């Protein structure tokens, strides 16, 4: 049974609010949405897709750094800083906050600490990705149903 456009719009509203309320997204994401218009209807999707690709690459690299013996803490710190920057740029607040937790562990060369941070980071990224993919799907379905969303 397909949902009608009104129901989908209500779902979108609810889901988006939840993502902000739960801290997955912050105002920067709203700023990105404001940069989208009829001339660039897929802007947010494009930026987020780039962010997903970027994320997967960085997470893989960080895991590799931690597997090295001895672990390359300077490089991990650099990746965490880079990831902090790109997550801030798309409004991925929780991911950004976890990135910030790496520094003290890198400075004290605490391998366990870094591993725990990486685990948390992977988890936050996964939650965010699912949430955003659902959001984009709702938007797509609304558009397909002839509706619109702000």
């Amino acid at each position, binding site marked *: 049974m397909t949902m009608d456009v009104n129901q989908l719009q209500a779902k979108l509203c609810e889901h988006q609010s939840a993502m902000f309320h739960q801290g997955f997204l*912050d*105002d*920067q994401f709203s*700023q*990105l949405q404001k*940069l989208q218009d009829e001339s*660039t209807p897929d*802007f947010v999707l*494009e*930026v987020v897709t*780039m*962010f997903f690709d*970027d994320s997967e690459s960085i997470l893989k690299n960080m895991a590799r750094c931690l597997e090295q013996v001895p672990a390359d803490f300077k490089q991990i710190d650099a990746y965490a*800083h*880079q990831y*902090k*920057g*790109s997550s*801030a*740029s*798309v*409004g991925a607040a929780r991911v950004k906050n976890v990135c910030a937790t790496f520094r003290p562990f890198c400075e004290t060369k605490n391998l366990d600490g870094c591993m725990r941070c990486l685990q948390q980071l992977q988890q936050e990224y996964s939650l965010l990705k699912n949430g955003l993919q659902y959001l984009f799907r709702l938007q797509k379905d609304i558009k397909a149903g002839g509706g619109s969303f702000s």
Partner: protein
Amino acid sequence: MAITGEIFRQNLTEFLEESPSGSPELHVLAVDDSLVDRKVIERLLKISSCKVTVVESGTRALQYLGLDGEAGSLGFDSVKVNLIMTDYSMPGMTGYELLKKIKQESSVFREIPVVIMSSENVLTRIDR
């Protein structure tokens, strides 16, 4: 970068008001090693009615400005840039190193305002 957007929009209005009337749109050269950031900056500047050129590194920026010491620059600066915005921490050349090179190498480009952006909040890590 969120805050940068707001500040940029406010300052841009002031900057435009100070420019001689009837001048063409501003050309901004943006430098950032992050693909995500480049896309956002480009859109932000375009929506602010600027002409934008985005490059991924200090080296590329110098090449674009014709300051990389390559033969072929006839001494006539055909590239017109009104503002340079650069990320601070980039592999290879930092935003500050880029700023220094631009100010040292060219009397023309020395006049161009350069904005350095950083998401680093521990100042001592921004190596001066």
